[in-house]
């Protein structure tokens, strides 16, 4: 799981151009939206692309992401359970 969490952080930093942030700066349990990393609705769509591209998980409805994208750990849990690649 720790390896998956690190990979996810690197993929998110790359996809969202979080240029001044390193993986260790992101708390596994901190909220990604609002406070924390301060992501917005376009970033949420970009997270959907990450799930599809790297893990073969397709979220047709962005609203499904609300619970999945709470924190890095919730994403990792969802990916570990649902990944197809």
């Amino acid at each position: 799981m720790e390896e998956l969490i690190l990979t996810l952080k690197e993929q998110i930093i790359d996809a969202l151009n979080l240029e001044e942030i390193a993986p260790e700066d992101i708390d596994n349990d901190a909220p990604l939206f609002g406070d924390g990393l301060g992501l917005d609705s376009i970033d949420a769509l970009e997270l959907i692309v990450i799930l599809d591209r790297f893990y073969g998980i397709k979220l047709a409805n962005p609203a499904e992401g609300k619970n999945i994208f709470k924190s890095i750990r919730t994403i990792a849990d969802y990916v570990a359970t649902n990944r197809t690649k």
Partner: protein
Amino acid sequence: MIEVLATNITSPLGRTTEENYRAVWSGRSALRCYENWRDIPVRFGASMLSDEQMAELAIEGFTKFESLAIRSIEEALSHCEADPTSPRTIFILSTTKANIDELRCDTAECYSTPGEAAKKIARHFGMTNEPIVVCNACISGVTAQLLADSLITTGEYDTAVVCGADVVSPFVVAGFHSFKSLSPEACRPFDIERLGLNLGEAASTIIFGQMENTSTSKWRLMRGYLNNDAYHVSAPSPVGEGTVTAISKVMTGEEKDSLGVVCVHGTATMFNDQMESKAIERGGLSEIPICAIKGYYGHTLGAAGVLETVLTMRASDEGVVLAVRGFDEIGVSGKINISNQERSCTTDRFLKIISGFGGCNGVLLYSKEEVARNTTEVAHQIKCTHTIRITPNEVVLDDKPLMCTTTGGELLKELYKTHIGDYPKFYKMDTFSRLALIATDLLVGCETMDERAVEHDLILFNRSSSIVADRNHLATISDTDNFYPSPSVFLYTLPNIATGEIAIKHSFKGETSLYILEHKSEPTMKQITTATMQRSDNPTLITGWIDCESENQFEAEIKILTKQ
């Protein structure tokens, strides 16, 4: 105030305004379902010209986009005596992505910029003035009409040929797919089960002239208003803040009951329709019948503002409010007067409302009622208060060089770290938006507290549109087996997003527009900025040239103009 001399709609539903009106009136829709169209692994609904239709419309030596625009303009010209070759005639092209379907990842050949496309079209008609391309996302068509009004009213020209056009391409389909905005079925504006928008391709033209008489036979653009929500670059203010303000400005001194219809944007996305319903309610227009025509044509992007205005004029001529195709059960919380049945339009007066990416909003008021001729307003004296120039090698602020240690794309990062530093969203932007944001930030930083306190309009010009983001987006969709279009890359393929980013950072709620020229032309830019300042009630305009050919090739030269 200007009047309409002639119109055209060229679409899958017909080649004239009349053919289109008759088709829509009889309930025909051009929307079809597509799957794996041109190897794009997406299922979507769209309104597209058939191969047979295109065979009739295509003109040798011109692209599909250019051919469509030419066909629309020439048919409109055939209905009036306007002389396209006159030096008193200006051509304004409204488009979001123009010839983008010709762009290839591996070569710069065969692609002409929006400005070059406009020049080709202008040359076809023997037009002598430099054409202007309006690239203001979904509100381009409304911006173009208001620009025509400003340029004619201030006496720069007698006639304006305003053409809105866009074609459906894998580029655009993939982009809206990445935003999860596309409905796989025919769209359902304002309906509880709406799933998103459909794309559509069309061209539509309005030829405007000076108001010649006070008779009631012609449609007149009475006034209009553009502004920015300064809320989010891809989502409208949930309560329709900008649209409410625009409605209020346009309807000042007017009886709301005098409106026969409000032609709304009605894209059938969750956010747009909800926002518009709230704006209509807050604007006091809940009782006025609305028409939303995306269920017939889809979202025709740069053509939409023109096409929907033309169709509303034609329907109003017949005393008709067109049925909202696709609507069944109300799915928005704002109170609106909507029906999927044809209704009667009781007056010759309507509003066109539209909103778009970049946070921009526009409202136009059209009327056939008797009005007095224009009175000439006193021209404002305009003073330039601050200037900035940024190239890959130098930064000059108010004629003083700024010391920098880097060049090229790194220079922008250095300027950000040195002079801004607390706006991490900067790194998410494309180079064009970064350049525009930094130039504006440094410029506004020179203002005194008094200068900063007033509302600013923002009008930028360029040549290369959003070519860097365009190529980046194309790279993400060129391989069918590796098809992962990025929403944050696609976003910046609308160059007016740069104006939205600036509006958000500085809370600018005035007009924000982006124009593309074939080349940097100071006289054309001055014409537009002067005419805009005469129209606007805001005292200050930030304007100038922001062009970005690559991540290391760019130029920003902007200034602050203030009315005296």
